[in-house]
């Protein structure tokens, strides 16, 4: 804080601090903001005006022009509402302010693992907490060896660099002989990663790359953008905010038609959509095949392009036309599966063939996160290829994460899509968490995909393919891994700094079963808030929010200008909280390993190191950065000159081959054919797979008699996964929560009037969404924004167990998602497009049936909070 160094500092005067308000964590920060502070309190959080301390000429403002109209970036960041309202998260009644211990967990006696999630917590001192933690680590190491400790140290959270939200614990345990690492998965784009890579390579994500100047090219050349399972008004917000929204308005102004293909009229559809084609969740593959059928039948595709750019088209054509299985994939075939009328499918096929069409995505959505998501992902690539992918106006475009995650670099100018800067600032080298920087990956001997953690605990041993780490190349998907590794113990202790298994992953109820399993002798959580998996921990340590710390950050990928900033401490830590980094240092100190973790550097020195290695250290001096608090990276004057998207591949496929085995777009995936020739769930030619060995989540499966509705779940509009759930100013928004007659704010379930009527459900009724994996209570939000036969729910709601592992009051629908992964050889999660039923509940009856759960206090505006779970 400035007063430490500045004798003239006046605490009563407002001071303004540039701070990152993105929520990706993992050294991938965004959303530059300004915090005004006075008298040791946060006054406000607001957008960063780029021209606050710089003349715009200093960062070379850019302008895109097309069709006689221009697009200029705003001169300020475009924050999402949870960044602006984040003060409520900092001062939340749910903050953990001191160490907590579960009352009936006795490390020297009964551990009562079966009571995790039911029994409450009591305050203990830091000394007592550290004593227990140190003795438990020693005991587990002595009894089972180091690999018995599982680190859940990844996932999303506050953007912190030196204070590293996630995985700092791995640095300590690595030096103590090893640990089992839960791998940072490809969540939100699993279909691209596990599927599309086999069609077109595109390392590391499986999404189109490079993306240079794709926005400019679309503005000039595209006639129609298909937002296929894409919501540009939701998923870009967490770390890149709202420039995507401005672009969509501009595209409308340019006369570019925007069609949304998704089960829900999502937040983009209802403000930007010229057309909504509702499609049943997880049936996109059937729709895509019918489009391909029309094109093959009518010859309305780019044959010449395929001759030079594609491999195995014949096999695909044989499947589409019915030669392979006797079923031609006609629009008539697809219509009852998808719910899209035959005539609409035909018209869409004709329109697409006659126009220049790009497809937009922004991760998440109903398209890419369901069972067998590999198939629609691959099919999309093939359809784009059939219309000349890479030619002017024909792209796959991502509506955010511009500049993120390139084939060789963590941040890559080739992936900017928007006008690029001279460099992308990155402070990842100062990141004190688990480093998944591609040049710095160090896995321990024993790893686990996040999606398989419950299986590892409940039913070992396991075998699977690929590390599942997002940066691994396609070939890694052919490599087998096992758990437990020979000579390594099974898991006996969990140490989590990202306690959100229940609310964000495949079948949270199975994660709950795993956390309550007797083999887990100790579960240690550290988190700023007592939420979700914390409720199942034995010890919970209080973590400071980033406002309570000094750090460094960047605002990357906003689409306007990239920034780097030093984040001054704004307020004193709440209660006895410490940063994740400080917590690990305290434990390390007790093991005599402090120096090993700090590497001899103070926090200030790590901040400086972040700047020194940022890639923009030649563009701004340390003194200037420190004095102004931020730096805006100037636009590259030559930004328009870079080749557009896959232009080079389009023009010269031999000279610019893809990273597939043939260097071409593989309609027949040679890698899959070689390694998994008999995998019916991910065959060499992409198929429509309604159900199979792994999943029975289709309306055509007998399970649908009991569970006749398909659940469509996207990332949440009003939170980032499980973050932000206690911001009262968001919870009072109509689409965020539904207040029940008992005063509890239930999570909304979108249901069409037709389905609601059939079930006697009226607006605001409390309903149960359930299947054979459990149930969650929700508030009925009756809307025309969801197609009949489908219910919509945002994932990530704060878990509030009525019966842990069975019934939840908070609306955490991930608890009842499929437990199996994408398919038998693909290990992403499948969290949208699954079967369920909905029924109205009698709250009085439930209150009587579960008096203890319903008697727990809750905050009327912030939901379950710390008082709910204290003894």
């Amino acid at each position, binding site marked *: 804080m400035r007063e430490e160094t500045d004798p003239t500092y006046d605490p009563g005067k407002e001071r303004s601090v540039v701070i990152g308000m993105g929520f990706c964590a993992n050294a991938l920060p965004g959303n530059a903001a300004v915090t005004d502070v006075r008298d040791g309190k946060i006054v*406000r959080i607001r957008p960063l005006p780029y021209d606050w301390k710089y003349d715009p000429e200093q960062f070379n403002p850019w302008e895109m022009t097309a069709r006689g109209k221009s697009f200029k970036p705003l001169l300020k960041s475009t924050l999402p509402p949870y960044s602006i309202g984040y003060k409520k998260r900092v001062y939340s009644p749910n903050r953990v302010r001191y160490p907590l211990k579960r009352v009936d967990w006795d490390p020297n006696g009964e551990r009562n693992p079966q009571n995790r999630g039911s029994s409450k917590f009591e305050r203990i001192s830091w000394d007592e907490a550290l004593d227990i933690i140190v003795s438990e680590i020693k005991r587990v190491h002595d009894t089972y060896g180091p690999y018995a400790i599982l680190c859940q140290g990844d996932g999303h959270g506050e953007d912190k660099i030196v204070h590293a939200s996630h995985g700092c614990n791995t640095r300590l345990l690595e030096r103590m002989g090893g640990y089992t690492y839960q791998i940072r998965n490809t969540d939100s784009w699993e279909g691209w990663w596990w599927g599309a890579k086999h069609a077109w390579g595109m390392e590391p994500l499986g999404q189109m790359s490079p993306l240079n100047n794709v926005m400019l090219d679309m503005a000039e050349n595209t006639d129609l953008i298909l937002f296929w399972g894409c919501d540009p008004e939701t998923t870009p917000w967490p770390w890149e905010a709202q420039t995507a929204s401005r672009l969509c308005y501009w595209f409308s102004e340019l006369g570019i038609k925007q069609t949304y293909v998704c089960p829900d*009229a999502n937040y983009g559809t209802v*403000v930007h959509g010229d*057309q909504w084609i509702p499609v049943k969740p997880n049936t996109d593959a059937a729709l895509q095949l019918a489009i391909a059928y029309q094109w093959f039948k009518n010859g309305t595709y780019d044959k010449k392009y395929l001759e030079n750019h594609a491999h195995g088209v014949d096999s695909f054509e044989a499947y589409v036309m019915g030669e392979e299985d006797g079923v031609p994939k006609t629009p008539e075939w697809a219509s009852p599966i998808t719910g899209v009328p035959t005539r*609409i499918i035909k018209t869409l096929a004709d329109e697409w063939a006659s126009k220049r069409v790009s497809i937009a995505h922004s991760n998440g959505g109903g398209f890419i996160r369901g069972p067998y998501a590999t198939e629609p992902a691959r099919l999309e690539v093939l359809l784009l290829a059939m219309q000349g992918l890479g030619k002017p106006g024909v792209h796959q475009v991502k509506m955010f994460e511009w500049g993120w995650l390139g084939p060789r670099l963590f941040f890559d100018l080739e992936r900017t899509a928007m006008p690029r800067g001279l460099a992308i600032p990155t402070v990842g080298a100062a990141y004190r968490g688990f480093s998944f920087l591609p040049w710095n990956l160090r896995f321990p001997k024993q790893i686990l995909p996040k999606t398989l953690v419950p299986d590892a605990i409940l039913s070992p041993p396991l075998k699977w393919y690929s590390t599942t780490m997002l940066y691994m190349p396609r070939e890694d998907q052919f490599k087998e891994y096992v758990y437990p590794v020979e000579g390594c113990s099974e898991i006996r202790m969990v140490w989590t700094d990202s306690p959100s298994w229940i609310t964000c992953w495949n079948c949270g109820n199975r994660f709950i079963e795993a956390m309550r399993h007797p083999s887990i002798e100790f579960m240690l959580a550290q988190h700023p808030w007592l939420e979700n998996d914390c409720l199942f921990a034995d010890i919970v340590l209080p973590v400071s929010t980033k406002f309570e710390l000094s750090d460094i950050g960047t605002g990357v990928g906003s689409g306007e200008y990239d920034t780097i900033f030093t984040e001054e401490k704004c307020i004193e830590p709440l209660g006895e909280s410490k940063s994740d980094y400080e917590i690990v240092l305290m434990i390390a100190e007790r093991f005599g390993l402090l120096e090993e973790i700090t590497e001899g550097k103070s926090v200030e020195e790590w901040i400086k190191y972040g700047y020194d290695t940022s890639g923009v250290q030649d563009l701004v001096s340390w003194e200037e950065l420190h004095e102004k608090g931020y730096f805006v990276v100037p636009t590259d004057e030559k930004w328009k000159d870079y080749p557009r998207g896959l232009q080079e591949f389009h023009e010269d496929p031999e000279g610019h081959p893809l990273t597939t085995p043939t260097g071409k777009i593989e309609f027949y995936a040679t890698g899959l054919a070689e390694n998994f020739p008999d995998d019916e769930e991910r065959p060499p030619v992409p198929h429509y797979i309604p159900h199979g060995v792994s999943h029975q989540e289709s309306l055509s499966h007998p399970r649908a008699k009991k569970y006749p509705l398909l659940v469509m779940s996207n990332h949440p509009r009003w939170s980032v996964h499980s973050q932000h759930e206690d911001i009262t*100013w968001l919870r009072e928004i*109509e*689409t965020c929560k539904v207040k029940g007659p008992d005063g509890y704010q239930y999570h909304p379930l979108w249901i069409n009037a037709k389905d609601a009527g059939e079930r006697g459900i009226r607006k605001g009724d409390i309903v149960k969404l359930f299947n054979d994996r459990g149930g969650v209570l929700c508030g009925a939000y009756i809307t*025309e924004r969801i197609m009949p036969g489908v219910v919509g729910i945002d994932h990530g709601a704060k878990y509030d167990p009525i019966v842990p592992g069975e019934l939840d009051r908070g609306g955490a629908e991930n608890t009842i998602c499929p437990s199996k992964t994408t398919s038998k050889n693909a290990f992403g999660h499948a969290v949208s497009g699954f079967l369920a039923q909905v029924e109205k509940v009698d709250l009085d009856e439930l209150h009587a049936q579960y008096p203890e759960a319903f008697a727990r206090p809750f905050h009327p505006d912030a939901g379950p909070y710390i008082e709910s779970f204290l003894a």
Partner: protein
Amino acid sequence: MGKVLIIDLAICNGCHNCQVACKDEHVANDWSPIAKPQPDTGQFWNKVINLERGTVPKVQVTYHHSICQHCEDAPCVEACNAHAIYRRPDGIVIIDPEKCRGNQLCLEACPYENVIYFNDDLNIAQKCTFCAHLLDQGWTETRCSDACPTGAFTFGDEDHPQIKEKLAGAELLKPELSTRPRVYYLNLPKKWIAGAVYDSEVDECTQGAVVTATNKETGEKVSTTTDSYGDFWLRDLPDGTYTIRIEKEGYLAQKLGPVDATQKDQNLGDITLWKG
């Protein structure tokens, strides 16, 4: 110089930044003498209203905004018997939190909805201040306009050339009143009637059909032509009841109605044309 706020509903994406930024500014922050703190929840000096329009698959949402109109002839000023409400030289209407006696006459007098709230704890009426405390510190934006990512909120001096240009096409809420508000709107929602025309015999979308809506009261006609999906949208319709006629060569003309577009937009759904 008078301040004005212009809200363009056509480019409001519903992010609620304005509503949340208003809370961030005014909840738990005391800006006396301009404003005392706003209650944490339930009151909105700048409220976003979610208007869901149409039915599957023709659905839109318009986000409307309720905010104090800062009227030149503000009924609340007249109504307050404690003389607590005043208009500043820049046109901003302020309820003086020190002078307010909690008589609530302003709530009754205000002709606009969701604008003035009563704070029971403080026993005062409260509402939008155009963030006058910030303007007095040199800010040129209100919190809501500063937080708006799309340009849907424009705040500034009424004489500024860019503001004047925008004001030229702007509308007022309840223009029939003589309150002379300082909040202007662009693209206030007008009703639409939509549908999809197809030939059920061959199951094909019917492109190029002419769809005409006739207002039953005024006789005024509006026409459009169906696109390749057979879709038509008759937009910007005055509230009213309409008859619809759909014509295409080779088909029997189809008459529909009366269609009531007084209260809400109408999706007529799939409409079959029969060969003539």
